[in-house]
């Protein structure tokens, strides 16, 4: 760091005299200054945006129908209560997705002509369920399967909601797993096979455990998506958070319950998104460290 000052009165000299880590102190001061600039510009931008919204011609009407404190307080307990249904959907589906997705990925990773039918079926499956809009799958299964009238087939919408979400998300998750499996260097399989492990054993003990570790961040990303997509099952009559907020909206002639629902999702999803980012960063650092 250079200062243009003369022999006397140079502020940099003074700092260096007071503290042997002089330049460090200057760096700290610079960091402080950029933080301050960021803070000020953020405040300015948000205040400007806020003023724009508040001065919009329809603001008072929107405020009345979307930001009604009384309706918010009245509807929030029921909304949070219904969110429990989403949590159950999510938890059950997530476990099933992790298992089915891994099974599909392993089927698609099996080499050789003998396993061609398995690879073909797994490929067709992932193609179909990635191509279909989720809402359609939920509609078709949720109304169609109980409609068959077969005694053994469950009729509860919750059951078909879980099945639909599992089918849809397993297709995505299997691709994530597969990318992870393919990212493991072939020398790992060579080492495992050379010790006498069978193909299945080397997948199970050597390849898949390493692959799973690698794909945890992208898997979490898919689960953020799943968490939000649980609202889609409201279409087949499951009273979950979105259906509940619709009920409250209709009862109060007011849209504030939707804002309450949005807040619930923000509170739950943002920490998960942050965690994902932290894990991605950690993996990136680790990859950089191991490729010294």
């Amino acid at each position, binding site marked *: 760091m250079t200062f243009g000052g003369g022999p006397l009165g140079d502020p940099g000299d003074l700092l260096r005299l007071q503290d042997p880590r002089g330049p460090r102190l200057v760096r700290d001061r610079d960091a402080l200054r950029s933080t301050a600039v960021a803070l000020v510009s953020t405040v300015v931008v948000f205040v400007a945006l806020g003023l724009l919204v508040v001065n919009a011609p329809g603001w008072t009407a929107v405020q009345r129908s979307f930001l009604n404190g009384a309706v918010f307080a009245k509807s929030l307990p029921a909304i949070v209560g219904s969110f429990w249904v989403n949590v159950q959907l999510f938890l059950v589906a997530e476990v099933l997705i992790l298992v089915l997705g891994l099974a599909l990925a392993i089927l698609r990773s099996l080499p050789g002509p003998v396993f061609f039918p398995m690879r073909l079926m797994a490929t067709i499956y992932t193609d179909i369920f990635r191509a279909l809009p989720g809402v359609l799958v939920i509609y078709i299964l949720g109304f169609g399967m109980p409609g068959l009238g077969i005694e053994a087939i469950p009729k509860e919408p919750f059951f078909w909601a879980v099945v639909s979400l599992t089918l849809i998300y397993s297709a995505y998750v299997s691709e994530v797993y597969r990318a992870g499996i393919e990212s493991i260097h072939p*020398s*790992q399989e*060579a*080492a*495992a*096979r*050379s*010790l*006498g*492990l*069978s193909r299945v*054993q080397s997948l199970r*003990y*050597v390849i898949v*455990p*390493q692959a799973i*570790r690698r794909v945890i961040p992208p898997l979490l990303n898919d689960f953020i998506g799943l968490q939000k997509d649980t609202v889609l099952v409201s279409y087949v009559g499951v009273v979950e958070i979105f259906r509940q907020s619709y009920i409250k909206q209709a009862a109060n002639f007011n849209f504030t319950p939707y804002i309450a629902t949005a807040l619930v999702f923000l509170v739950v999803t943002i920490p998960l998104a942050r965690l994902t980012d932290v894990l991605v960063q950690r993996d990136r650092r680790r990859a950089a460290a*191991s490729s010294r």
Partner: protein
Amino acid sequence: MRTAAGGRAGAPAAATPALFVADLHKSFGQLEVLRGIDLLVAQHEVVCLIGASGSGKSTLLRCVNLLEPIDAGRIYLAGEEITAPGVDVNRIRRRIGIVFQAFNLFPHMSVLANVTLAPRKVLRLAPAEAADRALALLERFGLADKRAEFPDRLSGGQQQRVAIVRALAMEPELLLLDEVTSALDPELVAEVLAVIRELARGGMTMLIATHEMGFARDIANRVCFLDAGRILEEGPPEQIFRAPRAERTQRFLQRVMEAGRL
């Protein structure tokens, strides 16, 4: 083919060779890497494969371990043809150990787990017994204190020694070493070579691809010079290194000597 009755004093001359390779051919696409390899390794014999990069040393080892399918020829392990159709490759591979240039340890497992995985899952040893045997081996090679470490916390030399122990834990009849010191910093080479010397003293049958000519001269009962997919010349180390007959061998050793590696 030369007889290969082991030169080491005290090693009993065994009737069946540990390894017999006959007219082995292997191509990768258009490139013919092995062009008729004939090789005999007697029980308790140490054979070193030398030759330039690309001469086929590594491919030969990978073929012997059935990691690469061969195009023609036969390979016999203790008299049993392992290239016959219908042979259970997993059963054969557990009898042959291989150590790779890049270690290939399992990074998600501790040292002990690396060593015990195959004994537990392939030999179906009880975990406690597998651990006992692994610890005895780790102890023998000065690695007992590293049992709980993960591979990325070890030096290259330590990783390679663990890789050797991992192969030994299967009690192989034959150990293949594929340029095991080539990826190591020079100061770490000696500790790995010391382990191999110790194994040779113990009578382990080994087929070693190496660039360490001094080491090959010390440890080998027999040295084979590979050139363009064939064994051009083979014999006791004194003869290969002091009085090579083939002109190509002479030129190869000349270049090695100029590089200060002999």
